[in-house]
């Protein structure tokens, strides 16, 4: 039996020529192209699609849109299995596999439902009141709860699908393509501005697709087609279907997600910047509150109408309509035309405008109870004239309509309670940046939506209202709560919160909307309370004797519908989450077995595997070779800022603690810069290339921060200074050539140029020409040997490297990495920003006090006068040496007086960096110690309980090697 509930005719959106096979909970079904999963299931007579969260009651399809609280399904298999989708939003395709998310062994018979007997013992807020002692109890209970709440199961495999992201700019963004939105977009397009029309459904038309109305003498379909045609031919209009605008983010920036069908990219995330926005998001129908209002077969009247009109589906054979407003008349017509028998219409208003003489009808309904445990079997209705039982398999309900003000409110718009809607409607914004039109603005009916929409789309237009027959002109609701005093009356189907739970919460003093929401979880489910919030607030108002207007609404929080992490991340996750920066010599390093390591965004060689089996062996060999022969390291990553102008020296005097304006042309100087709070920010050498041309270097990690800082000092503090600056980090490839043989290698590299101390003195800088290529040589040395930094334009970096390696071969050159560099600089007591200098040390703490000028202002100078920097208990830089070759001193070890045995001890300081010294043949370290160099000779324990290491160390000077600097000046 296939599609038992598909009417012979009708269904505006389906293509009966294209049957599609799909399965649900293991059973195979057939639907048509254009069907949503919900429509196709209903067409096959399937109503029970899930079990409720707490009471495990069977639940059916309740809506036909994003407000669906019940029909939550998992779709797809393998890596593409997607939980938590709403059956009302999933379009079927051939081979689609869908399953319910709760109910074992099946949704029709769920063992979990047996827990319903415990219901009296599990009131709202139950868990706050118990499982407090013993303390070990809660974790056990929690474990059970976590498993019980489990629903959506996700594939453990990486998501294979692609998502992308695009930006769009327009003058007018129209959100929603119902009558108001279509009219708005068409009017805006006619006025010549750039228009974007975003519609969450695959087709335009909105509520016009659900009715049979006549607009200016034509069918509503013809009206949709005419407007779509206008927009499609207009060059200034863009239509985005399947696109849900999920939130507004200020200054008219909107986020939207578009579902793409049959493409490698499954979703596209749009950021849309609009000059003006027109909200035409319509309204959502509310349920009614009566006993067993959650049974499968109870459905919003507008949803039943939609299944009939759009999909030719009979959601039941015998329908009862329970309503409190006039809007259900069109549902009655639609269902009847689809072959559904309307058995009775009940209206909660005293004098209902039933408008349907053919069915039994009654007004003044006081109580409704749905019969049947699984699917609806009938209703028992109490009216002023007594009780009446009616058999039926479908109960269409309407509790009035709620304008969809989420985006209006979410962008800061205000709302007010409008009794004509029984809900909150937008206050028009005054600055012209946004407007609401149609039902979401609180106007009733298609005619006013079209007129209102056109004006919103083009404020200069004033089109006449169309003549619409079959239009709705009033949605004022009657009573919503028609429950017997006792019974299971659900306010929020999605989270299984009933009136009783709200009553308990309010009784305990949780009597505001927010408190009830948090205490009961009402409105916190997968539909975010779209159908529940207004009724929930009404129940609280009723219970606490306030009006709904006083209650206010909860905050509308984005996203309007759930959005995937995949779309939000687009293609910028995984390896593309951050740029990977590579120097011009990168490929050489990797081709020569360099073990690379991250350094800020850069990838740099840590050591070369050819030099030893492990990092310490290899780095020791590399470091020793620098001391004995010559080594080559890639230091291109250091930040480089070129400054030009007559006043550069003045700026540098302000930025650095020491004076630079006196630096001679052709010389370099080491500088330390502070933050204005007195702590060391960065260090590096700066060269004066010409009278008004300077090159400043920064640490790798601080290149951008230092540039911003310099720009701030210039533009904010000293805009009077005549200078300009730019980063040239990427323009130069730089190597450190260091070791006793470095001069010979450099001379060879420069075709025998004179690189003696006369030509290139210590801290001197000179440009050479090598075959037309500029080679900048600076005689500085981080390792503390005779050494040069050699820079060439980046494109020549690899050529320079290879030439140096070749020429250096007779001089025993080998490359060295960051690890060896660390060993070498620790031996020299040179500090590294980020390790020894961590944003919490002053220049005085690390032996740089002598570099702080007393004769000029500099950033941070005043802070150094603060009492804190004179405190006796400040930790200051010292060196440490171990007595034996093993074990190493661990960087990050704490310095304690006694060997650490697990008993807490006062900390005397910490090790900031450590190395094995090739020269001293012993582990050495730098660190910060209370008392600093006053404690040289003291013995302490460098304890690293976290790694299980501990070693006794002696406090020594931080300058382990060549303290007078003879070697680098050679």
């Amino acid at each position, binding site marked *: 039996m296939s599609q038992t509930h598909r009417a012979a005719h009708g269904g505006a959106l389906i293509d009966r020529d294209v049957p599609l096979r799909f399965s649900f909970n293991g059973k195979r079904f057939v639907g048509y192209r254009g069907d949503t999963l919900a429509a196709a299931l209903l067409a096959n007579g399937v109503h029970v699609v899930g079990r409720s969260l707490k009471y495990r009651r069977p639940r059916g399809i309740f809506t036909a849109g994003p407000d669906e609280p019940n029909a939550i399904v998992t779709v797809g298999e393998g890596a593409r299995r997607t939980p938590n989708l709403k059956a009302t939003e999933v379009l079927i395709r051939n081979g689609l596999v869908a399953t319910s998310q709760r109910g074992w062994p099946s949704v029709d018979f769920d063992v979990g439902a047996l827990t319903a007997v415990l219901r009296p013992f599990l009131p709202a807020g139950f868990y706050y009141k118990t499982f407090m002692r013993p303390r070990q109890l809660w974790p056990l209970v929690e474990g059970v709860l976590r498993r019980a709440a489990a629903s959506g199961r996700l594939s453990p495999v990486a998501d294979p699908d692609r998502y992308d992201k695009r930006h769009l700019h327009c003058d007018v963004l129209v959100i929603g393509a119902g009558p108001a939105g279509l009219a708005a977009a068409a009017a805006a397009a006619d006025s010549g501005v750039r228009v974007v029309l975003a519609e969450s459904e695959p087709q335009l038309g909105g509520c016009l697709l659900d009715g049979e109305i006549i607009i200016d003498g034509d069918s509503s379909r013809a009206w949709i087609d005419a407007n779509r045609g206008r927009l499609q031919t207009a060059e200034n209009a863009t239509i985005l279907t399947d696109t849900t605008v999920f939130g507004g*983010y*200020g*200054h008219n*920036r909107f986020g939207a997600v578009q579902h793409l069908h049959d493409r490698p990219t499954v979703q596209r995330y749009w*950021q849309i*910047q609009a000059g003006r926005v027109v909200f035409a998001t319509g309204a959502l129908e509310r349920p009614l509150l009566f006993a067993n209002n959650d049974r499968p077969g109870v459905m919003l009247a507008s949803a039943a109408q939609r299944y009939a009109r759009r999909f030719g589906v009979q959601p039941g054979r015998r329908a009862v309509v329970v309503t409190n407003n006039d809007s259900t008349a069109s549902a009655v017509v639609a269902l009847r035309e689809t072959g559904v028998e309307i058995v009775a219409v009940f209206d909660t208003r005293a004098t209902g405008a039933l408008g349907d003489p053919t069915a039994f009808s009654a007004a003044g309904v006081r109580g409704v109870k749905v019969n049947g445990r699984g699917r609806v079997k009938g209703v028992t209705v109490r009216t002023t004239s007594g009780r009446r039982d009616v058999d039926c398999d479908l109960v269409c309900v309407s509790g009035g309509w709620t304008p969809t003000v989420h985006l209006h409110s979410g962008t*800061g718009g205000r709302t007010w309670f409008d009794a004509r809607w029984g809900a909150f409607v937008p206050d028009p914004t005054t600055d012209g940046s946004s407007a609401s039109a149609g039902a979401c603005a609180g106007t009733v009916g298609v005619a006013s939506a079209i007129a209102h929409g056109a004006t919103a789309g083009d404020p200069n237009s004033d089109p006449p209202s169309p003549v619409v027959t079959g239009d709705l002109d009033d949605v004022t609701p009657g009573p919503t709560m028609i429950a017997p005093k006792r019974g299971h009356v659900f306010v929020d189907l999605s989270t299984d919160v009933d009136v009783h739970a709200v009553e308990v919460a309010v009784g305990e003093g949780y009597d505001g909307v927010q408190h009830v929401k948090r205490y009961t979880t009402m409105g916190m489910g997968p539909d975010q309370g779209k159908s529940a919030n207004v009724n929930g607030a009404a129940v609280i108002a009723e219970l606490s004797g306030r009006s709904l207007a006083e209650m206010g609404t909860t905050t509308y929080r984005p996203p309007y519908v759930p959005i995937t992490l995949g779309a939000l991340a687009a293609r910028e996750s995984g390896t593309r989450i951050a740029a990977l920066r590579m120097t011009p010599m990168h490929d050489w390093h990797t081709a020569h077995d360099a073990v690379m390591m991250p350094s800020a965004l850069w990838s740099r060689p840590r050591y070369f595997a050819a030099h030893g089996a492990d990092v310490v062996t290899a780095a020791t060999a590399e470091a020793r070779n620098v001391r004995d022969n010559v080594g080559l390291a890639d230091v291109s990553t250091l930040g480089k800022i070129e400054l030009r102008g007559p006043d550069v020296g003045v700026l540098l005097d302000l930025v650095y603690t020491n004076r630079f304006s006196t630096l001679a042309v052709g010389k370099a100087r080491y500088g330390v810069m502070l933050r*204005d*709070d007195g702590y060391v920010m960065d260090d590096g050498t700066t060269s004066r290339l010409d009278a008004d041309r300077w090159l400043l270097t920064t640490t790798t990690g601080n290149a*951008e921060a230092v540039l*911003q800082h310099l*720009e*701030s000092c*210039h*533009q*904010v*503090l000293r*805009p*009077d200074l005549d200078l300009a600056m730019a980063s040239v980090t990427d323009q130069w490839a730089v190597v450190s050539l260091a070791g006793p043989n470095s001069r010979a290698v450099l001379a060879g590299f420069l075709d025998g140029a004179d690189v003696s101390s006369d030509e290139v003195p210590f801290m001197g800088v000179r440009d050479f020409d090598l075959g037309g290529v500029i080679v900048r040589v600076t005689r500085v040395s981080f390792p503390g040997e005779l050494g040069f930094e050699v820079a060439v334009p980046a494109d020549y970096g690899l050529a320079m490297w290879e030439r140096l390696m070749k020429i250096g071969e007779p001089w025993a050159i080998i490359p060295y990495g960051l690890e060896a560099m660390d060993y070498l600089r620790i031996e020299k007591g040179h500090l590294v920003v980020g390790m020894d200098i961590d944003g919490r040390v002053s220049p005085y703490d690390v032996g740089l006090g002598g570099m702080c000028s007393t004769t*000029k*202002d500099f950033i941070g*100078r*005043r*802070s150094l006068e*603060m009492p804190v920097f004179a405190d006796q208990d400040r930790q200051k830089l010292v060196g440490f040496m171990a007595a034996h070759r093993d074990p190493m001193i661990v960087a990050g070890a704490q310095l304690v007086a006694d060997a650490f045995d697990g008993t807490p001890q006062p900390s005397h300081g910490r090790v900031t960096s450590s190395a094995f010294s090739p020269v001293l043949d012993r582990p050495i370290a730098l660190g910060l110690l209370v008392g600093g160099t006053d404690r040289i000779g003291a013995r302490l324990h460098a304890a690293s309980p976290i790694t299980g290491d501990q070693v006794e160390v002696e406090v020594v000077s931080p300058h382990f090697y060549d303290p007078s600097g003879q070697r680098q000046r050679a």
Partner: protein
Amino acid sequence: MLRLPCPHCGQRDVTEFTYGGDASACRPDTITPVDDQRWAGYLFMRTDSVSDHVEYWHHTFGCRSWVRAQRNTGTNEVMAAVLARSDRRST
């Protein structure tokens, strides 16, 4: 999304900028004596006003100008924006 009118480049997304914070206090000239109270006031104390917060922005992914803007931190309305370098204030 907050958009800032860079006086040099025009209206741009906040993601192009780096925030520079409260611009209501001027850095005292520290070569003349500045008492602890005044220095701490400049260094640490913040106006944090809602209706007319004066603040610095750096157009990092643009012209690299430092911009001084006046913004309502409740509504994110930007009332004014000038280039810091064109408007040096006395210290």
